């Protein structure tokens, strides 16, 4: 398949402005003749649905949660980046662009990233206008902080609940359009298939989670704003319901999947406590601004701490290894997420980890408290410290926090062109669900920025171009054969899951998949391990389809049935991630192949052979997928080895 990224011509800083002018417009009176489906109501989905409805389109918005306000964007803590340069510290659109491209280890498109940096400033204006209570200075201006690897203070925040406040802003805009009759909401409704006819996306098949009813919805365009697939690892910081099903089923209908192996492991999460663990909780990395990361210098001390014989506070300063400060004097504790995570893993692999499991390092605030006083620290991080204490039962004002990396974000996703359209005309992917802007590693406080950029400021322009091209008559009714056939397939899968009546609960199989992915396709990967993982996943797929146990029936609220369908898709995705990781014979960003590292253990890119987006094309059940390459061209930045020393 020929991949057309549709990157506009012209100088980088003018591409988006020129492109907006070249896009076709839909006459205001004609907008009401179009239907748009938006799946997912997180930052990307809610902002897109609200903005498109404001323009006059008829929108149907779907979410599996009981309310659009609960989408997992709500859990983002730290902040949102914008190139406002309010702090007069040298920030600019170009600098935000440059930091994002570099942070992504040169595996993102220049044009997309520059557009993201450009619209970042509009996002802050929009959110403030909606009443989002960002943190302020005493004089009333907006406050900023520096965040995760940035050397300027460009992050806007609302305590440790920035995602919540931004989502509630988008949700309020969405609610206003529901009241105006321009958006129809479908909560507790899950998309189970995409309908493609005549080469275009025509609508979706959904299951009402309360009644179990399978329904068809037709539209001129379908927007997937369905988030990431971190739950393929079972344990992640994602919500329990976060899943890949909508994106995966679109993939099986022809949408290419970009860079599936690019996953982000977040360095500051609360460590695992036992086998019953259902999810991992992130501690915002803003904590790294004041906390110092360390582990005992000697294995012996680590073991004594693991056994509970001594406390971390008993360890003298010279018995501690502040390993990030030692290895990266320039950035210290603020190195990007992938670097911080990998270093924590190395320390634990050396046997210097702490906690009962030996899988944790310290994040210590003692110096910050001494320097700024407890009150200041409490004002900055009070709710995070509280959250930590609730989960672990330990007081982080007295004992250093324990942290360990956990899966947090997926940079990969459906391949989209500059207009955010997938390889299926009429099907778009926004936010974390697409692959586009973060390359091989996402910088802190950039996810919220991208979700809202796509929804508020990109899709309202680009979707119009497609709609104006096809015209209002180009839509098919829900009783047409394409819909009926897709409905039949969904019914058949639901019935199949219920009829297996095996021995193993869904969660049990999901946990097994998670172990395989974490072990072989996690922070550090090898060809040998990935090959083994592929075999294991294939075996697990067989086991799933012969031995899963789903009780109850399809015509009722049935959470195990919902979960079973999601895990079935995660298993298939897992295999593709392994293929992608195996294909990418280099290390870049979150993807670290042990075979490819510099003598001092840093990621070693291969720009000559791998400066491309791997876009995978589905070839049918149990067939190897076909690799398509979109070559990345860099005209404005020079590819260098990322150095945070």
């Amino acid at each position, binding site marked *: 398949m020929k991949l057309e990224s549709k990157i506009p011509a012209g100088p980088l800083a003018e591409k988006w402005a020129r492109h907006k002018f070249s896009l076709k417009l839909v006459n205001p009176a004609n907008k009401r003749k179009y239907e748009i489906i938006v799946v997912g109501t997180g930052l990307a989905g809610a902002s897109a649905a609200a*903005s498109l409805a*404001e323009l006059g389109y008829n929108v149907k918005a779907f979410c599996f949660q*009981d*309310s*659009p*306000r*609960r989408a*997992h964007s*709500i*859990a983002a803590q730290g902040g949102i980046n914008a190139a*406002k340069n309010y702090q007069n510290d040298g920030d600019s659109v170009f600098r935000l662009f440059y930091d994002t491209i570099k942070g992504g280890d040169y595996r993102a498109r220049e044009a997309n990233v520059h557009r993201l940096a450009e619209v970042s400033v*509009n996002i802050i*204006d*929009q959110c*403030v*206008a*909606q*009443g989002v*209570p960002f*943190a*302020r*200075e*005493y004089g*009333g201006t*907006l406050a900023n902080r520096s965040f995760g690897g940035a050397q300027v203070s460009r992050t806007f925040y*609302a*305590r440790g*609940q920035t995602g*919540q406040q931004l989502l509630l802003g988008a949700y*309020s*805009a969405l*609610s*206003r359009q529901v*009241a105006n009759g321009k958006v129809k909401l479908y*909560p507790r409704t899950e998309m189970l298939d995409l309908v493609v006819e005549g080469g275009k996306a025509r609508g979706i098949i959904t299951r009402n989670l309360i009644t179990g009813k399978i329904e068809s919805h037709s539209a001129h365009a379908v927007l997937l704003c369905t988030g990431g697939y971190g739950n393929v690892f079972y344990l992640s*910081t994602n*919500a*329990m*319901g976060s899943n890949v099903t909508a994106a995966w089923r679109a993939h099986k209908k022809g949408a290419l999947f970009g860079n599936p192996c690019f996953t982000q492991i977040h360095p500051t999460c609360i460590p695992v406590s*036992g086998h*019953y663990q*259902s*999810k991992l*909780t992130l501690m915002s990395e803003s904590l790294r601004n004041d906390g110092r990361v360390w582990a005992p210098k000697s294995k012996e001390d680590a073991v004594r701490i693991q056994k509970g014989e001594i406390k971390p506070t008993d360890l003298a300063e010279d018995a501690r290894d502040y390993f990030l400060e030692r290895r990266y004097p320039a950035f210290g504790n603020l190195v990007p997420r992938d670097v911080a995570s990998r270093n924590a893993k190395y320390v634990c692999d050396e046997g210097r980890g702490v906690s009962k499991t030996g899988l944790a390092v310290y994040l210590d605030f003692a110096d910050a408290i001494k320097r700024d006083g407890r009150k200041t620290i409490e004002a900055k991080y009070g709710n995070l410290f509280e*959250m930590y204490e*609730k*989960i672990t*039962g330990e007081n982080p004002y007295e004992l250093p926090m324990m942290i360990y990396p956990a899966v947090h974000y997926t940079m990969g996703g459906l391949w989209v062109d500059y207009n955010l359209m997938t390889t299926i005309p009429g099907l778009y992917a926004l936010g974390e669900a697409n692959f586009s802007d973060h390359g091989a590693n996402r910088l802190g406080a950039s996810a919220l920025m991208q979700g809202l950029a796509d929804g*508020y400021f990109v899709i*309202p322009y680009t979707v119009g171009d497609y709609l104006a091209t096809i015209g209002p008559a180009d839509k098919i009714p829900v009783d047409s054969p394409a819909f009926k056939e897709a409905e039949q397939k969904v019914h058949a899968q639901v019935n199949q899951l219920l009829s297996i009546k095996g*021995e193993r*609960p869904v969660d*049990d199989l999901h946990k097994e998949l998670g172990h395989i992915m974490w072990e072989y396709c996690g922070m550090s990967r090898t060809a040998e391990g990935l090959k083994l993982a592929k075999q294991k996943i294939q075996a697990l797929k067989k086991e799933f389809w012969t031995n899963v*146990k789903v*009780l*109850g029936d399809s015509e*009722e*609220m049935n*959470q*195990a049935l919902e979960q079973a369908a999601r895990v079935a898709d995660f298993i298939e995705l897992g295999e593709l991630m392994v293929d992608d990781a195996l294909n990418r014979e280099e290390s870049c960003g979150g993807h670290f192949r042990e075979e490819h590292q510099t003598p001092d253990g840093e990621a070693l890119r291969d720009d000559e052979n791998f400066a491309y987006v791997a876009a995978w094309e589905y070839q049918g059940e149990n067939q190897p997928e076909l690799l398509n390459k979109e070559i990345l061209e860099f005209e404005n930045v020079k590819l260098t080895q990322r150095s945070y020393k």
Partner: protein
Amino acid sequence: MKINLKVWRQKNNNTAGKLVDYQLDNVSEDMSFLEMFDVLNDSLTRKGEDPVTFDHDCREGICGMCSMYINGRAHGPQTGATTCQLHMRSFNDGDTIVVEPWRARAFPVIKDLMVDRSAFDRIIQSGGYVSVNTGSARDANEILIPRTVADEAMDAAACIGCGACVAACKNASAMLFVSAKVSQLAILPQGHSEHKERAERMVAQMDAEGFGACSFTGACSVECPKSISLDHIARMNREYLGAKLSSENVQG
């Protein structure tokens, strides 16, 4: 530790429910309350019994989805926490724990411990927003908001919409939820131009949904996982009264 559970089981909204006894023998004190339910559901599934349906999603206290009424308290014995943030170390070996769904006429039971809270969405739709279209905002720093005002708005905006306030109230009143939004937008200059209509409309919708009246006992604020203050109810009452006295847009 050993835990005895009495869990509300109800097939759907058309059938009667009842409390059913379960016993768990190997509960770790580091488990969250919902992980304890995962363990229960795993054992029920293996035995061929229907697992317990309950709402949950983020499991870190922010999405507002989880909603269990535990030993007569919304979200259980801890204050300032959701059910998913409750850990078994808050209980003792051998304890009996009664777990029910939120009980309120405006929150009908869907199944077991899961209820329908869409009434909250409809209340927000009735006016819980600032009417500003995408693209028509001015520069963010042109609106100066003193830190103390922003902080107070943030206190109100922290509401997660879980419905614990309704469940905790003997009248099943939604005043704390509604007032949190009314108050946030009344404090901020951005929300000012619509403040009268907002108070009127949101209160009218709250009544239409069948929530009870507020008798200001304060149970809602105590059980609120985000400790939303009663001050916001006072502010909403003031907003509502002011609106009723001076509004040109008088509604029922």
